[in-house]
Structure formats: C-alpha cells, structure tokens
C-alpha cells in the first residue's frame, strides 16, 4: 500500500474528506469509550445524539457555536489569502475590553444606542488589535503568525490588569470583576435561550460566503492566496489584501467578544472566553476555508463541547475527553486531506521488491 500523487486535485475528496474524518473520529471515540469500560453505543449516543434531542440543549449548542462560527468565518477568509491570523483570541479580548468600557464608565446609560455603541466598539477593538500584525507584516515583513499570537497574551493581561485595578467593581469586595451590566446593556433574547448575537452570526457567515464566491473582492483574496505573483500582475495589492483580511477577521473576533460579554458573561472578568479564538482555527479548516462551511464546522465543534459535558455528567467520563475528541478530529481531517492530492494504491510496485 502506498500513496500516489493524483494528476489533478480531486474535488470529490475535498468535499468527502471532512465526512470521512468525522466518521473515523466517531469510531475512534467509540473505541476509547469501550476501553474505558463504558458501553460505546450508549456513550456515543449521549455524546453526539442526545444533545440534539432537547430544545434547551440545541439552544445551548447554537449559543456555544455562535462565537466559533463568527470567528471561524473571518479566519476562513483570511487563511484563503495566506494571511495566518492566529491571534483571534486576543482580538476577541480587545473587542470585549472596548465594548465593556461602555457599561464600566456609563453604568446608567441604557438607551437603544447603548448596545449599538458596544458592538461598534467591539468591532473597532478587534480591528485595532489585528491592525498591529497587519502593519508589521506590510511594513517590516514580520511573520503575522508570531505577532498575532503574542498579542493574545498582551490583551489578556491588559484585561486582567483592568478588572483587578481601575475597572474593578467598587462594590465587589476586591474580587476581579467589573460591575455587572444593566438590563439595557445586555443583548435581547429571541427565545429563552438564544440571544440576538446568534442570528447576526449566521447572517454574517452567509454574507461572507457570498463575498468569497461571487464578488471581485473574494476573487482577489483567493488569487492572492493561491499565487501572489499572479495577483500582482492582475493589479491586486498584496498589502491591501493583508490589511483587509486582518481587519475583517479581527473585527469579527472583536464582535464575538462584545457578544460574549453582553450575553453569556454579563460583565468583564479576567477570562471572557474559554478559548474560542483558538478553537475557531479548527472551525476554519474543518469548514474548508469557506465561511458557509464554518457554520457546519462551528456547530460540530460546539457539539463536541456540549457532548463532552454530557458524557461527563451522565457517565463520569473525564472532561479531558472533549480535547481528545477535538484533537482526533483535527488529526483525521489533516490526514484525510492528503487524499485530495494523493490516492492510495494497493499494488506493490515492481521496483520496491529489489
């Protein structure tokens, strides 16, 4: 058995690869459950099916998927252009800081404009944070993978400093939290469990999907990623594309941060995200670097979180299973993606016998 390069990229495999990877992940997960002494069918049911059988858990799934999709869709666009923004977690935090400044400084302000201001500031915060690596790349050719990643820690420490020091709730007994946001500073809920941000997320992902596949801007991004030289000859500016991609993905991460603090969290605290910015990198790849694909991928990854908690509470399977399953999934996707450009040949070549 060996791998042989295909004459042409297989578009069938490009679509099939995530599904093969998901199937392999489920089989492997079943094996792990069996090795632990759980009934694999029961555990797989609790992990992957049961969360979809009740309205409340579907709502939780959508709320959990929302930041993953919003960030993942932006990253998908950036990665298409070979712009490797790894620091979405930091841009999310920067967005949360700016958006959170509104309730911190104007705790009484609760007009319809309040939320709008918070969201705009959230986007601005994420954009500003992403503009730094974009500038460094364009001006000094600094690798944006490193700069964007390092800035994650900077913004997290900044938030940490703010909620422990100047932005701490004066009535909060010294605990590292800001004031809790007032009613008018929280996102409205469309059902008992789903906040308005979830809807915005889906609209944004669909619009981005349209831009990528149907507009000149999308073409420019794709060409820049596939062949920077060809893009230059077509008159597309590489530095402008880099800036656009960083600002887009950063702005969406910032918006996700604003959504989180004005819905699930409800205040500023040292940790506002359990790592959505990093998990969204998996979402972008699993979604085939397509914003619409990111919707499906984000839902799947959210299911891995929710299901991981379900098997933990129902079957006492340790919480680490979530990470294990996410890791296995990413591993299989990357492995299966090999089949897009290569095929498996089962015959033994004559030369190899010698």
């Amino acid at each position: 058995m060996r791998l042989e390069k295909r004459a042409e990229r297989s578009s069938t495999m490009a679509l099939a690869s995530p599904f093969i990877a998901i199937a392999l992940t489920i089989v492997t997960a079943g094996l792990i459950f069996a090795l632990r002494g759980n009934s694999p069918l029961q555990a797989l049911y609790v992990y992957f099916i049961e969360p979809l059988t009740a309205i409340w858990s579907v709502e939780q799934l959508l709320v959990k998927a929302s930041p993953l999709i919003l960030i993942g869709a932006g990253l998908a666009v950036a990665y298409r252009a070979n712009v490797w923004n790894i620091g979405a977690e930091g841009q999310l935090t920067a967005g949360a800081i700016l958006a959170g400044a509104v309730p911190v400084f104007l705790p009484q302000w609760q007009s319809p404009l309040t939320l709008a201001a918070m969201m705009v500031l959230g986007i601005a915060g994420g954009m500003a944070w992403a503009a730094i690596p974009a500038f460094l790349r364009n001006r000094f050719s600094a690798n944006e993978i490193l700069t964007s990643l390092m800035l994650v820690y900077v913004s997290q420490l900044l938030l940490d400093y703010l909620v422990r020091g100047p932005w701490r709730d004066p009535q909060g007994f010294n605990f590292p939290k800001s004031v809790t946001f007032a009613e008018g500073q929280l996102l409205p809920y469309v059902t008992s469990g789903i906040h308005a941000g979830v809807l915005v997320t889906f609209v944004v992902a669909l619009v981005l999907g349209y831009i990528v596949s149907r507009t000149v801007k999308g073409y420019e991004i794709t060409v820049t990623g596939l062949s920077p030289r060809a893009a230059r000859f077509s008159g597309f500016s590489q530095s402008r594309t880099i800036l656009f991609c960083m600002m887009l993905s950063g702005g969406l991460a910032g918006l996700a941060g604003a959504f989180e603090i004005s819905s699930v969290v409800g205040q500023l605290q040292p940790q506002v995200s359990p790592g959505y910015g990093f998990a969204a990198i998996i979402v972008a790849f699993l979604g085939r670097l397509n914003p619409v694909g990111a919707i499906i991928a984000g839902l799947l990854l959210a299911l891995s979180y929710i299901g991981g908690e379900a098997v933990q509470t129902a079957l006492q399977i340790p919480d680490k299973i979530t990470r294990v399953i996410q890791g296995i999934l990413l591993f299989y996707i990357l492995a299966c993606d090999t089949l897009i450009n290569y095929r498996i040949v089962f015959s033994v070549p004559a030369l190899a016998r010698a």
Partner: protein
Amino acid sequence: MKKLLMAAAAAALMLGAASASASAEALKACWVYVGPIGDFGYSFQHHQGLLAVQKEFGDKVETAYAENVSEADSEKTFERFAREGCKIIFGTSFGFMEPMLKVAKKFPDVKFEHATGYKTADNMGTYNAKFHEGRYVIGQIAAKMSKTGTAGYIVSFPIPEVVSGINAFMLGAQSVNPNFKVKIVWANTWFDPAKEADAAKVLLSQGADITVQHTDSAAPLQVAQEQGKFGFGQASDQYQFAPKAQLTAIVDNWAPHYINSVKAVMDGTWKPQQTWEGMENGTVSMAPYTNMPDDVAKMATETAAAIASGKLNPFTGPITKQDGTVVGEAGKPLPDGDILGMNWYVKGIDDQLPQ
C-alpha cells in the same frame, strides 16, 4: 448499519428508562468544580464531600459532577444540571457567582449553594470556610521552623479570602517572631503546577526557607522537598507528595456542610443561608504535624485547640495595618464583614495590594 441504528435506539431507550426510574426516588445532588478532582487539593476535597454524601444517604441520593468548568462558560453547566433533575447544585468557585445567580432565577424550584461568594437569592445560599484560622496556626509553625525568618507565599488572586489568609499567617508568625518576613508571588491561577513550582523556586532563591501556597496543587511543596526546605499542604493532606517537607496542611472538610444541606433539601427545610464555619466543627482542620520538634507540634496543637474552642481569634484587635493605621478594639475580634471584605495587609508584609 440498520442493526447498529436499532441497537443505538435500544440503548437510548434503556438509558432513558434507567435515569427516569432513578430520579423518581433518589434526590439528585450535583457539583460543579473549577479544577480537576485530581488536583489533590481544593477540588479534590469538595469531591470528598460528594463521596461522603453518597455514603451517608446511599440509595436515597444520586450524585453528579462536572470538573474543570471554565469560569467564563459555567452558565450552561449549571443550566444542564438544573435541566437534568438536580434538586440542589453546588458551585465551588467564586467566579461561578453571576452565572449561578442567573440560572437560579430561571429555575426557582432548584436549590443553589455557592462557595466563597457573597450574592444570594431565594433559592441560592453561600457557604465558606474560615481557612484563615488554619493560616494562623501554620504562621506560628513557620516562624518557629524558619532559620532565615522569611517565608515564601504563593497566592492566586487578591480576593478577600486570600488576603485574610496572608494576614492571618503573618499575625500567627509575628506572635512568635515579631520580625518575621513574608515574600509574596502572585501566580494568577488556582491550579497550574508548573507556574506554582516556578514561583516556589523564585521565593526559595530569594532567601525564604518555608513555602506556603494559596493555590491548589502540591507543586510548591514538592519543590521545597527537593531543596531540603519545608512547606505546607493546601486544602488537603499532601503528605504523600512530600513526606520530608510537609509540616502540616490546612484540610478543608466540606462533608458535614454538604450532608446537612442535602438533608435539608430532603426534609424540605432548606433555606438560603450564608454559612461560614471553621475549626469549631472540623470544617477546617490541621493534618498531622510532621517533620518538626515536639515543642513546635505542641504549640500548634494548643493554638488550634484554642481557635476551635473560641478562646483565640486570629483577628483580635488591635491590628496594625501596613500603612501604620490601627484597626480593631483591644481584645475584641474584628467583625466578620471586615474579614470577608478584607483588602489591606497587616504591617510587615513585603508586597502591595492592587488598589
């Protein structure tokens, strides 16, 4: 494939039936832990409480828990437990306060208890332990055992529980050696063995010869053992991790509180309370005194007994603050509120609190 699906469906039905029959009789009690139960410290001790409840009530209770729950994302965990039929839910970290409060409003029939916080509702109470009583005892031991007269103290977050712990430790140490010094490193985490170990190394290299920690792993204690120094266990008896270094440990025993609360829910007498218990009923106790001369062990035993009987209160006035001002009346303990909201250091601590 068809068979597999049918088997899955059958398994699902059985599972549904099983959980339905169990919840019909047993009271379901649920715990949300901030760390892993394998920390052999704070979360481990809460889990011991769960096991004690299980043992006490047998078939009459069903328990469930979630570990390593992120403070940014705990609301959905509390909601899951409320939906899954838990009648009482315990959250063991301060950061769970707002999410719990939100879920408590949504599920008025479920009881909630929050460890170490201060907000309550009709169906949400708080519980906490007077950890600082144990800190006073280990402060005295540290002052007796230290050759350099300096302890290295690794701390998590500048919240009142931690600050009052530092102060109680210092007051205990000063009662033995008025010139005792404490060096402090903020680890900004509850559980990160690598970071905690690094902090311990820094402190020991700066002249401290005893480690104390208000973080949840045994790592600082293990560093102390490697370097032939002494230290204390945190939340749980950590003797097995450093048999040559552990002097004693402040042991949290949540079992009595959990058993009482679960019983109150069963009897229908549960009310939201703000309980704050210490050595008087064993919620806070000391692990066996090891690696120390008999006279030091005797002093520690006597101090702990005096605190348990109420004869000694670590925060008895007058107490000189770091800035030189004096609080508390002579011979009288500080009011509880001052300790629960403490945000100042006593004199002699070499650190600044974020203000």
